[in-house]
């Protein structure tokens, strides 16, 4: 099992109604900032479409393909469609790329050309006498005079007798050969990933190729691909639906409480039926609470742009400032001890650890004033880069630490299992470590995002509280991380277990306080940002 899968497992937690882990004691509480939602399977999503299509079919007395095209055009808003259709059926149909009701070809098979009849004897072609006109403007009038037909795409000539089998036109009358239609439609589906909006081949013609016709034209595999794309389009066109972004999961989340206009005050985190969390607002494949979607997007772009600068920061090694030997970070804890000279320091700020354990702890805060003073002589851009790097470094560090915590736990787990087997511990006694690691990882992810938030947060009298909450959680997490890295020995295990359990409960409490206050802060409009949200 990869550590990524492991990390995903750790994301199951209580905010929703899907918690089934027997080790979790707390009943789910729905908070003001949470959203209600449903998890739908792929077949339920297909049923949703079928139902909507069947309903329109009955109400407007149309065939299924036509009803489907209308619904897709109106973004699956049945009421709006019915209203517009009753108002002006022709307009509704034409706008959606369909034949108006008066057109004789609207409800008949497009395979039959309006004028050519199979009883007409094939004539010698006259098209060779036609004066060549640019293909863009060439009219398809050749069809109405019963003569052979030259496909304007491939320039192959078809005798009149084969028109009904070898060529076809949609309701708009633009005729092309069947082979060109097939190549065109297959390319649209397989190369361009188009489905609901495949239009007539004629330049500027918006007539839609119906699903029933596509099924006649393409091979079964492409047809299946087409159906799949239609489902995808249905979900992306429906504002209240979103695919679960986790690999291999085909579920869809339905949520009506998180429209885009609400995303400046809520972070609609949901848990899919597959057990993984996602953000309904932006589709991020994990919780990014407490940061707003827009800020996450800005942050990711910034990190990508500055990745060259940032890469070296993510490196897993640093040099001891006392003896210059290379130190590798192998656990999630920021409390580092140089193996060679025993110098204890903080991984994040490289400052002496002795200053971190006590009340004086400055590792979460970038003191803008003193920082600016110190960098007085340097260019302003350098200062802003350093400010960014300060937050990025902490952001990236928590991500790295969460991964390392998970790896580290695997070793602990083995050791504990051994102790369990040798009879020193019961199964239930072994579980506390797993729970504590879950808590640490979850808190680190929240802390990680809190640094993204802090980067964009404008300083006002409310931000102090945010930074205090962040610092308290950070300190609690580092302490717990440190405890988790202690080697469990049979004679000290009960003390360690008590310490870890207590510290874990404290981390949980600090975590909930930070989350609660920050998310409520959006609703109460307490936060101001340096960018437009």
């Amino acid at each position, binding site marked *: 099992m990869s550590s990524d899968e492991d990390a995903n497992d750790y994301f199951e937690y209580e905010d929703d109604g899907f918690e089934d882990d027997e080790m979790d004691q707390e009943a789910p509480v729905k908070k003001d900032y949470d959203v209600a939602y449903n998890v739908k399977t792929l077949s339920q999503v297909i049923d949703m479409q079928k139902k909507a299509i069947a309903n329109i079919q009955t109400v407007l007395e149309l065939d299924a393909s036509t009803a489907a095209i209308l619904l897709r055009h109106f973004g699956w808003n049945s009421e709006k469609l019915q209203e517009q259709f009753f108002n002006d059926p022709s307009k509704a149909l034409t706008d959606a790329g369909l034949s108006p009701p008066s057109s004789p070809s609207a409800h008949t098979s497009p395979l039959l050309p309006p004028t050519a009849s199979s009883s007409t004897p094939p004539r010698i072609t006259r098209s060779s006498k036609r004066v*060549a006109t*640019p*293909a*863009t403007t*060439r009219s398809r009038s050749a069809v109405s005079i019963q003569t052979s037909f030259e496909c*304007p*795409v*491939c*320039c*192959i000539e078809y005798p009149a007798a084969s028109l009904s089998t070898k060529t076809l036109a949609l309701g708009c009358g633009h005729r*092309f050969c069947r082979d*060109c239609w097939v*190549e*065109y439609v297959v*390319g649209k589906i397989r*190369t361009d990933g188009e489905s609901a909006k495949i239009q007539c*081949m*004629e*330049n*500027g*013609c918006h007539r839609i190729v119906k699903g029933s016709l596509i099924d006649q034209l393409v091979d079964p595999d492409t047809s299946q691909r087409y159906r799949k794309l239609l489902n995808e389009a249905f979900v992306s066109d429906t504002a209240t639906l979103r695919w679960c972004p986790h690999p291999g999961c085909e579920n869809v989340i339905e949520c009506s409480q998180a429209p885009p206009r609400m995303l400046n005050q809520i972070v609609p985190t949901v848990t899919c039926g597959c057990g993984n969390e996602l953000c309904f607002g932006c589709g991020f494949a994990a919780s990014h609470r407490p940061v707003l979607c827009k800020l996450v*997007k*800005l942050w990711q*772009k910034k990190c990508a742009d500055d990745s060259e600068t940032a890469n070296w920061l993510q490196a897993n090694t640093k040099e001891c400032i006392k003896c210059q030997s290379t130190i590798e970070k192998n656990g999630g804890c920021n409390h580092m001890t140089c193996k060679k000279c025993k110098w204890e320091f903080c991984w994040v700020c490289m400052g002496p650890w002795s200053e971190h354990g006590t009340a004086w702890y400055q590792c979460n805060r970038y003191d803008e004033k003193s920082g600016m003073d110190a960098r007085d002589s340097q260019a302003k851009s350098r200062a802003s880069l350093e400010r960014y790097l300060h937050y990025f470094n902490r952001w990236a560090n928590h991500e790295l630490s969460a991964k390392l915590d998970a790896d580290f736990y695997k070793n602990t787990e083995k050791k504990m299992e051994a102790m369990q087997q040798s009879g020193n511990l019961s199964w239930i006694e072994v579980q506390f470590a797993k729970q504590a690691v879950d808590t640490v990882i979850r808190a680190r992810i929240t802390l990680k995002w809190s640094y993204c938030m802090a980067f964009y947060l404008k300083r006002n009298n409310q931000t102090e509280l945010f930074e205090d909450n962040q610092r308290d959680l950070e300190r609690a997490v580092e302490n717990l991380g440190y405890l988790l890295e202690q080697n469990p020995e049979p004679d000290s295990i009960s003390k360690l277990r008590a310490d870890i359990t207590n510290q874990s409960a404290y981390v949980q409490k600090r975590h909930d306080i930070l989350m609660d206050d920050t998310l409520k802060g959006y609703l109460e409009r307490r936060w101001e940002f340096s960018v437009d949200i």
Partner: protein
Amino acid sequence: MVLSISSRRLMKELKEIETKGTPPGIQLLKADDMETWIFLISVLGDETVYKGETFALKLKFEPGYPIDYPQVTFLSDDQYQPPLHPHVYSNGHICASILGSEWSPVLTALSICITIQSMLASCKKKERPPGNDRYVRSAPLNPKLTRWAYEDDTV
């Protein structure tokens, strides 16, 4: 040997150009094979910001033509330079909707030239697209591999 669809179609287009000629300001410079054609394009009249300039437009046809649109770029060599235009990158790549989502298989090499010519004719200010340098630095050789979208500088 059966003629491929793209060759058959291009031969027909070539024949039409030979019999009917090209619109003013458009001239077929090279069509030695059914793969690469080069047209010279200039904007006529006094109203244009490109007065007196001539550009070379290269069309590269693939077997999927005309169901699929050709690769279209402005030449950038000792003799010709791409026009300074908000939809033309300095490497000759062009951001135009008919060379993408608005392509129709009934359009021809000549209709591409006409569209590009009118795109130049409507230009009021000579400038490169925003993000030109960044695009050109990482652009693929084939402009069809670029997913054209409007520049978003808000992020």
